[in-house]
């Protein structure tokens, strides 16, 4: 996965800013095709409720894809996001259905949001520390939680499905603001904040430097270890938030299922959005775009009654096409 620029006659790229926008075009093209196809074919596509449904479904992928983009920018990858979702999603109901929370509902509700995210943060720090301090390769470092994180969640819940009815908690999954599900707004706010940091703050610069040339970054005083840990930690916290959203929508928490296969969707979204697995680039809005593309593919196939097995093949083809289109544009 090295930069093979020297061998493959690689014409100079334009400056990075326009490069980001160009590489988005693969995803944009895919989006355009999907929209046109749906408007023409899918029944009732142009409908406010369609938008709401898609926004509510894409929110979790988008959040995790944003986090994944940060990790990928350091040249890493995070397979543990689904497991972290399960962990935080399993914790929340345990907390607000506990006796203590029953007696102090506000405190309990607050704790149900905060404690799972702290747990997710710890997972992220663990991943980051393995990668940055011990030098374990990211796939393997995050494989540890991929395997065991969900197990921990199931141990916590004894494997049981936890169902509950808690309208104030379910707010983050079911409420709407201006007709759009509240988690959609949440995604936009979080993405905007992260985009700002990546674009305008020193830590963003550091992130790209670490991914672009780790040794050079270290030599320039960049706190490489901290930057990497921060990337994994942010990714895990965002996964944690997604886990809470899933649980809130369903009014139920099933540790075995929350976030299943999320890592693959998130990685695909990040890459369709223009992230490069070797690091050094962090297209945040690209990740959102990628997530929207993945979501629309899913929606299109489902709404048109394409059988699950065929849908898998179609999804594979679309990912290949979108990423290949980007590759072409980059030259």
């Amino acid at each position, binding site marked *: 996965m090295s930069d093979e620029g020297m061998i493959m006659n690689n014409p100079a790229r334009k400056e990075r800013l326009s490069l980001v926008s160009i590489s988005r075009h693969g995803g944009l093209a895919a989006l355009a095709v999907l929209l046109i196809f749906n408007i023409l074919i899918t029944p009732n596509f142009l409908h406010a409720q369609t938008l709401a449904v898609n926004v509510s479904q894409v929110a979790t992928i988008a959040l995790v894809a944003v986090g994944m983009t940060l990790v990928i920018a350091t040249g890493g990858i995070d397979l543990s996001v689904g497991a972290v979702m399960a962990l935080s999603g399993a914790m929340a109901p345990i907390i607000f259905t506990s006796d203590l929370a029953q007696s102090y509902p506000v405190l309990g509700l607050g704790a149900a949001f905060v404690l799972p995210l702290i747990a997710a943060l710890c997972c992220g720090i663990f991943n980051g520390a393995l990668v940055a301090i011990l030098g374990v*390769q990211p796939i393997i470092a995050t494989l540890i939680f991929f*395997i065991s994180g969900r197990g921990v969640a*199931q141990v916590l819940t004894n494997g049981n499905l936890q169902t509950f009815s808690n309208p104030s908690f379910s707010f983050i999954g079911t409420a709407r603001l201006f007709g759009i599900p509240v988690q959609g707004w949440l995604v936009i706010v979080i993405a905007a904040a992260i985009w700002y940091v990546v674009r305008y703050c020193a830590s963003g610069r550091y992130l790209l430097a670490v991914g672009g040339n780790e040794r050079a970054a270290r030599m320039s005083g960049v706190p490489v270890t901290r930057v990497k840990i921060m990337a994994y930690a942010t990714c895990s916290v965002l996964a944690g938030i997604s886990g809470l959203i899933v649980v809130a929508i369903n009014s139920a928490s099933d540790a075995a299922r929350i976030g299943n296969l999320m890592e693959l969707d998130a990685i695909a979204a990040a890459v369709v959005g223009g992230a490069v697995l070797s690091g050094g680039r962090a297209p945040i809005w690209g990740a959102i775009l990628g997530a929207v593309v993945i979501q629309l593919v899913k929606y299109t196939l489902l709404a048109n009654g394409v059988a699950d097995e065929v849908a898998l093949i179609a999804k594979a083809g679309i990912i290949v096409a979108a990423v290949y289109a980007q590759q072409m544009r980059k030259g």
Partner: protein
Amino acid sequence: MANAEMFDLRGLMGRHAQMSGVWVALAAMIIFGLLRYDNFGSAYNLGSFLNYNSMFIIISLGMCFVIMTGGIDLSVGYVAAFTSIVAAYLSPWGIVPALIGGVAAGVAFGAVNAILIVPMRLPPFIATLSTMLAAKGGSLVISGNQTVAVDWDSNFTKLGMDKAFGPIPWTIVLVAIAAVILWVVLERTPLGRTVLAVGGSEEASGLMGLKVTRAKVFVYLLSGGCAGLAGVFLASGFGAGQPLEGTGWELTAIASVVVGGTLLTGGLGSIPATVGGALLLGLVFNLLNFENGRGTISLSAYWQMVIRGGVLFAVILLQARMSKSAERAK
């Protein structure tokens, strides 16, 4: 040069530390098992353990070659599921057509990977992720969403169910032969050395005039073929082509390769250590089953997941420490 001798020592320690972690851990686990559990060392357990894990060893071997070039192949699990169906359909004609057909189907998937990765230059992670989805969809399509029975009357199931000698099953014999061949290819042929060189630096290999493209195509075809063989074992050993099998195999294979001390960034790798890694990970399951059988603590399925993650963590820590102390020994 004055410093030559110094390099000797450091290199030797460093080179073996990464690979020896797996043997230490494996030996420790076997001794633990023998001491703690009755029947752990029984011929029956040995035979069935090897038979089941032959599938994982073979895909780990293919994965090892892919990883040595700095690539990755996520499609192996579902490709094996796909080829198990192909083999099941071919089983009435006997063992040879089913074997060849299954492996060929795997190689075909490998060819798709190779096309996506080499001429189309997609990142291996994304390319093989897509083939993984396609292979899963494809196996459901060709099987009509059902498991496909093999022909029990042809000799096909002998491959996966009979023993070659003593408790040693045929599958592991085939795997051993494959491992030896691959070992020779890696250590003693230009192709094998090119695979390693490409993983060390693709750019430099190209400038050195090595056949980079051929090496990259080869590893994906090989990995596909190995997955194909695993699929044949699956069909033959379990009597059916199984569209739902194969989930997570790719991660098991990657973990085996890494536990065997191969760098995911490519350029280094060992065939025996990869086999050791696959055996080690398989042994975790086997030991857990025996532990459950003692009845003192009955571990739930979730604890087993936690423990597997913990074992992986421990092996990684062990490796990190061993290569550190080898470094310090300078």
